[in-house]
Each structure stands twice: as structure tokens, then as C-alpha cells.
């Protein structure tokens, strides 16, 4: 049982994104950026966004983290590129529901590869890892919108 849950947590997509994170670099010409920090484990990452009007034209990240936080960040960069702000935030809400195992949340087909994060719901102590990059992404957007940083994020650089 434990091993099955562990296999579901660390499925091949997750390990692949951990070992070969996509868009793992600073972003030249970023319009906003924010740090995500997990004080419990010392993990820290930075997310850079290039907003073209209301649309995310590019997104990258860099930092140190566990397989879950790194894979989630990597998957996020692929998922939100080309999306509008509202779509990106809506995706965050769906991912949050997915990783916390919120009752009645079906694994939605339109989540694509992000569905690989569903295994996190069996490990409540790892939800923060899976959410770290998403909080940073949202903080960066809020900062760009003049909304200030969320408490989970340290620095927000306005454009």
C-alpha cells in the first residue's frame, strides 16, 4: 500500500521533470518575478514571468527544491505559457484542489500533465512543496498588478 502511494507520488513524469526541469533559467526581459520560500525545509525558488498585455508570453524558474517542488514548478511553466492571467490563476486553483485532494475534485482532463501531481494528495506534508512555485507565480502577477506580495513569497519585483 505504502509503496503504491509512493509510486503514485513519484511517477515517471514527476521524476523526469525533477531530473530535467523545463524552463530552468532566469528570464531576460521578464516583466515580473517573485521568490517562493519554504521555511520548514529551506527550499527556495524564483519564478520569472513575461506578461504580454494580459497574456503570459514566457515563464521560467530556478532554485533548489525537492522532486515535488521542482517538478511542479517545471510543469507549471509548461502549463501556463500562453495562458491569460485569469486562466493561469484558475489553473492554480485546480492544482491546489488536486494536491489537497479536495472532496469531489475529479482529475480533470484539461489539466494535462499536471494530473501527475494528484499523488501528492496522499501526502499532506508535501502539499506545500507542490504549491511553492504556484504561489510565487501568483505573487509575481499580483505584484505586476500592483497587488503586493502574498505572505508566502519574499520579493516581488514590479516591471
Amino acid at each position, binding site marked *: 500500500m*505504502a*509503496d503504491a*502511494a*509512493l509510486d503514485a*507520488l*513519484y511517477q515517471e513524469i514527476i*521524476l523526469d521533470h*525533477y*531530473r530535467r526541469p523545463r524552463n530552468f533559467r532566469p528570464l531576460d526581459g521578464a516583466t515580473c518575478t517573485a521568490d517562493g520560500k519554504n521555511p*520548514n*525545509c*529551506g*527550499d*527556495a525558488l524564483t519564478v520569472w514571468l513575461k506578461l504580454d498585455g494580459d497574456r503570459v508570453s514566457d515563464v521560467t524558474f530556478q532554485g*533548489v*527544491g*525537492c*522532486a*515535488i517542488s*521542482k517538478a511542479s514548478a517545471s510543469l507549471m511553466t509548461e502549463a501556463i505559457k500562453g495562458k491569460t492571467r485569469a486562466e493561469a490563476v484558475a489553473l492554480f486553483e485546480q492544482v491546489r484542489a488536486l494536491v489537497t485532494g479536495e472532496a469531489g475534485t475529479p482529475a480533470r482532463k484539461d489539466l494535462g500533465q499536471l494530473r501527475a501531481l494528484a499523488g501528492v494528495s496522499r*501526502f499532506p*506534508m*508535501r502539499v506545500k*512543496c507542490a504549491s511553492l512555485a504556484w504561489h510565487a507565480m501568483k505573487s509575481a502577477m499580483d505584484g505586476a498588478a500592483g497587488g503586493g506580495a502574498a505572505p508566502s513569497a519574499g520579493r516581488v519585483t514590479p516591471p
Partner: protein
Amino acid sequence: MTSDALAPRADFPLLAAAPDLVYLDSAATAQKPRQVLDAITHYYTHANANPHRGAYALSGTATQAYHDARARIARFLGVADADTLIFTRGTTEGLNLLATAWGRANVRGGDNIVVTRLEHHANFVPWQQLARATGAEFRIAELDAAGGVDLAMLARLVDARTKVVAFGHVSNALGTINPVAQIVRIARGAGSALVVCDGAQAVPHLRVGVDTLGVDAYGFSGHKMGGPMGIGGLVARRALLEAMPPYQLGGDMIEWVHDQDTTWNVLPHKFEAGTPNVEGAVALAAACDYLDALGMDKVRAHEVALTSLAMRALAGIPGVALHGTARAEERSGVVSFSVADAHPHDVATALDAEGVAVRAGHHCAQPLMRALGVPSTVRASFWVYSGRDDVERLTAAVRSARDRFAIR
């Protein structure tokens, strides 16, 4: 289960109820023997009242229980003057007491405070912030090549303006036992520094004679030595405690309250404002009884053997790197390590799935992690109920975690 453990697993109700659990996070908090749990129940069943207050017999019983507990714990720690043992919530509160009450009254701009790279945040941040608040310089003695405190550097950092030298007896992150006598000699060499020792990781594992260490103040936590959470203490020289202003103000710590002024109670009450944690003190005294019955020398020998075994077993796994001194006899029961391409959090999750509970993280020692060049480590820590089969299950689980996360 752990047939070669020093203490029977059956003595520890949590472990007895979870026969498959390999609990290797005793440096974070130890499991409690039944005797400690019984002491709590006994206190509330037979002796509970507010001490130092009532004129009725039961309050006297509670007062006596609290008093006896202090004497018992002082004896365990090798402290002759039991009234110089101030009960606190734990090491953290004791160190904050010193940094606040003594520090604010005695440290000025132009002074300096010296700590080491090995410190737990509890013996780092209070001094760092005291330095910031007073304008004193905050100095950090770095590690030497062997992973211990660089004593030559420490000697260079301590000078006539050094007001505090604060160091841990045993590193919580690495298990390194510091050469207390040498550090004290260096700290005393240049002037009049207050010498403060964090004993949180020493008292559960070593026979500590606080009076013989030569330090001015020594903090410890009850929950790491089998006692309950929320009780610990600060032992300090009587003259120091008497000269220091109080830390918290309120009931019990006063001698007389006038309209415009107040005088302070005698030691130890001057530093114990409010209703004390009698339950905690009584149960911690029971933990001291338990450890003395086992024998601290046997505890030490058991942990050295187990640590040595774990170090050999883990070092034999390709990709596993151990942190800290290579000599098991210079460690408490702690092995801190990294696993090749795997992040410590992932290792801990994988180990947990096999029933092996270890700590992963920075161990409240971020300055140390920076020096080691890692964001965090995996830490396995042993105590009296740990045995060889715990080490075997740890090793097997680390092996499979290494394989799972290996970059191919």
C-alpha cells in the same frame, strides 16, 4: 523487536503500540517512557494545586512536588545549588531569557558577541538580534577542515570587548560533541565574556556535570531526554542570576509590590513568573530517574556503538555522503547525510513509506547548512530504545530511495 536496544521497547507506550515504526528522530524529540506518563497522571490525581499559594495542605503537596523535582533534576545535571536551576519551557526560552535580561543590561555598542557556525537557531538568533539591537558586533567562529569549531579562529575572535561567547555542547544537526573545556579556556582568555552553553543535545546522551564545565550558563530541554514538552531549564551561576534583572514579570516572582515600585523574589522564583509547569517538572524528574536507572555511561556506550554501525552502513551505500566528523566517539547519536541526486525531503518521504521516521531539513541551523553547501540534510538520530535492526531498516530504505531518485 529491537532486542539489543538498551531500553525495552515495552517501556515506551508509543513504540509498543507501533511495533513496525523505526523512530530515528530522537534528536528532535524523544519518545516517553511509561514512568514519565505515570508521573503526570499521578501528579494530577494526587497532588495538583497551585504551588506557593494556598494555605491548605494540598497546595503544600504541590509545592513540595515542584521543589523535589527541581532538586532531582539538579542532581541529574550535577548542579549543587538547585535554586540556580531556573525552569523554562525549554532551551530556547532559557537562552532568550539570558539574551534579553542579561544582554540588554550589559551589552553596548562597540562590544562584540561570539557564536559558532554549528549553532541551532535558538543559540544564534537571540544573540544576533541582541547585537543588532545594541550595536554590538556579531562574530561567527567557522568550522575547521574536520567539521568542528575552528578553535584558532575562535581564539582570534574573542577579545577584551567580547561580552558573550555562546556555543552548543553538541551540534543538533551533525551530532558533533564540542571540546567544552578548550572553548571555555579560550572564552575566558581575553576578558570577561559571559560563557553560555546550549546543552539541549548533550543532556539526553552524555553524563553532564554542569558545575564542572566552567560555563556561566547552561540550557537544556526536557522533551529530548524523555520528559514532556514544555519543560526545560537554564542553570546559571548564582551571582549572575542575582545581579540580572528579571525576564518576565508577574505572580510568584515578586517579593513586594508597591504602588510605584516592586522588589523581586529570591532564586529561583525571580525568574519563574506565573503558575509554574509543575506537571512538567515532576515528569522530567521521573525521566531523570529512568535515565539514571539505565545508567548514562551505558546510554553513551550504546549510542556510540549504534552511531558507529550506522555510519559504516550508510557510508557503504554508493552515493551517500555523511556530514560531520568521521569519528563516532566524537558524536552523540546523530548521523546526518545526503543521498546523491535525491533531495532530503524526498528521501524522508520514501523512508516514511517504509516506516522509518527521520528528519529532513535544515535542522534549525541554516547558517551551518550554508557552510556545508547544502540546503538541507537527512538526519537519523538514536536513543536508548534504538537498536541494530533500526539501523538495518534505515540502511535498506536509504538504498531503495537512492535507486528511486537516481538520475539515469
